[in-house]
């Protein structure tokens, strides 16, 4: 019942895959780097990292996220499968609504984070991380043997349009009233791409903390790829005061400020969603009966808060930036945690970081971070650092 979509992307000499927008990245001066098996833009010429970051916070940034893996999960037991491998409650999710969730192993650890969209009671669309592609596919394949489900993966153009002017920009290309599509909702709609009209999937969501959209544009044929490429170029060439392409570098600093997790850093197979301060991913309706992977451990942690000693939390500092792996100490010199991501904050100044720290360290308390062999002052801070501006009507 499992089929793996044919990979339609071309391979480079270094065996790196190219997305359908690759040609445009090169044309716009993208500095291309290997990332999760793809050659992706990290920065573009004439835009520094900080300029790219600030552009997204003030205008509209275009992110090629076609390297992420898209899944279709359909069939009479599609819901049952998803509610076993994640703690989501699909009964409370309406048609054309989406939610963040996590693929869980039997110990409650996070195999990957994912966005699940409901298109019908037996019809779901899921997006997972590029870097987890192999293990996610194997995990789902193993799990679905017990279910009457059709699972397939596909690659297409996945384009995130993020920033306060994202809606204004995209509205120029569709007759669908985007003011009626709220955060966490999706639509199939006709988009004026290049020369034609293309039926696409649009979700109001993102990974920057700004209002924005993620567009799934079919790219299975050369003609479809050409339309997607043309649309991307038109956005940039015809609306240069609103739209710029943005690379991986700013994507990371934006999500960090927005307090969002990056798999492999804040989330791993050894960390449960409760430790990751993501208890909200387990809705009330799933807390009584469990039934999802690792539910006994996760529900146990919810029932006995003292069983979880560390939590994901923010850190602020000045001077050299905390980076992944730096140790954290309290004022008495006791080791109390570690940094998982950190960088200077273009929006706020100073440094921001995410960390796992002993719960006894309260927000506002002073800590020491060991950076290049020296202890530096920092402070426990709440997440997110930059408030989210999701469009909720």
């Amino acid at each position: 019942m499992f089929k793996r979509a044919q990979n339609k992307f071309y391979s480079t000499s270094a065996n790196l895959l190219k997305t359908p927008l690759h040609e445009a990245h090169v044309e716009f001066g993208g500095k291309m780097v290997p990332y999760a098996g793809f050659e992706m833009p990290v920065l573009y010429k004439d835009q520094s990292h900080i300029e790219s970051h600030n552009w997204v916070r003030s205008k509209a940034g275009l992110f090629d996220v076609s390297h992420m893996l898209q899944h279709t999960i359909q069939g009479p037991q599609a819901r049952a499968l998803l509610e076993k491998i994640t703690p989501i409650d699909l009964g409370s999710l309406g048609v054309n609504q989406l939610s963040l969730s996590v693929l869980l192993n039997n110990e409650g650890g996070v195999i990957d984070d994912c966005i699940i969209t409901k298109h019908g009671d037996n019809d779901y669309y899921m997006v997972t991380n590029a870097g987890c592609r192999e293990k996610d596919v194997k995990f789902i394949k193993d799990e679905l043997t017990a279910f009457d489900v059709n699972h397939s993966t596909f690659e297409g153009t996945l384009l995130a349009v993020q920033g306060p002017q994202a809606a204004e920009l995209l509205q120029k290309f569709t007759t669908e009233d985007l003011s009626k599509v709220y955060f966490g909702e999706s639509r199939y709609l006709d988009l004026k791409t290049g020369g034609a009209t293309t039926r696409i999937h649009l979700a109001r969501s993102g990974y920057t903390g700004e209002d924005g959209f993620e567009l799934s544009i079919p790219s299975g044929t050369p003609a479809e790829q050409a339309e997607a490429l043309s649309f991307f170029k038109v956005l940039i060439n015809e609306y240069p005061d609103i739209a710029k392409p943005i690379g991986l570098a700013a994507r990371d600093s934006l999500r960090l400020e927005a307090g969002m997790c990056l798999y492999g850093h804040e989330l791993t197979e050894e960390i449960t969603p409760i430790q990751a301060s993501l208890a909200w991913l387990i809705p009330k309706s799933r807390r009584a009966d469990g039934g999802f992977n690792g539910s006994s451990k996760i529900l146990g942690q919810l029932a006995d808060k003292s069983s979880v000693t560390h939590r994901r939390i923010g850190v602020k500092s000045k001077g050299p930036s905390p980076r992944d792996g730096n140790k954290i100490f309290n004022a008495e010199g006791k080791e109390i945690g570690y940094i998982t991501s950190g960088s200077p904050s273009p929006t706020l100044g100073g440094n921001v970081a995410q960390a796992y720290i002993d719960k006894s360290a309260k927000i506002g308390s002073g800590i020491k971070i060991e950076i290049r062999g020296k202890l530096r002052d920092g402070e426990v801070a709440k997440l997110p650092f930059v408030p989210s501006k999701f469009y909720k009507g």
Partner: protein
Amino acid sequence: MFRTLLRTSPLVARPSARLFSTSRAVFNSTSHKLNKDSHVYKYLQEGPSTIKYTAEHEWLAIFKDDSAFVGITTYASEALGDVTFVELPEVGDKVEVGDTIGSVESVKSASEIYSPVAGEVVAINDVLESEPQLINTDPIGNGWIAQIKLSDPAAIESSEELLSAEEYENSLSEN
């Protein structure tokens, strides 16, 4: 300085070499000349006696008083992007070849700066504490990092690690 690039951002999963090789396109033969209007050039009236480079993208301006100014090259500065913070050594620090004398940070990464020479730090460019972007705007000049009094001036000429401008340029095109 990029020999052990520290903690490149996860997202950019250690692309350092690739990142630099793509930025080579912007490199040109005049971009690693010492800025003649800078404090470094004017340190002694006649200017520096020699300029050297390392494969780790540091430059060294050596003066007749056996002191040398150290900084990072234009190539390194462009590869780093917007510099947000520079950690400087302290005046009086004694350093051996290869010792860390500070670090240069951008939003996405932190890179150590290694001393290409042995000696004692006699001055630091503390302007970088308030204006770290000088590393981007004038890396081989007012973006200097430290001045080191050489403990073994004769080692400069015999060193195989210190490259002439031409050798450095060749090392870039080989990468």
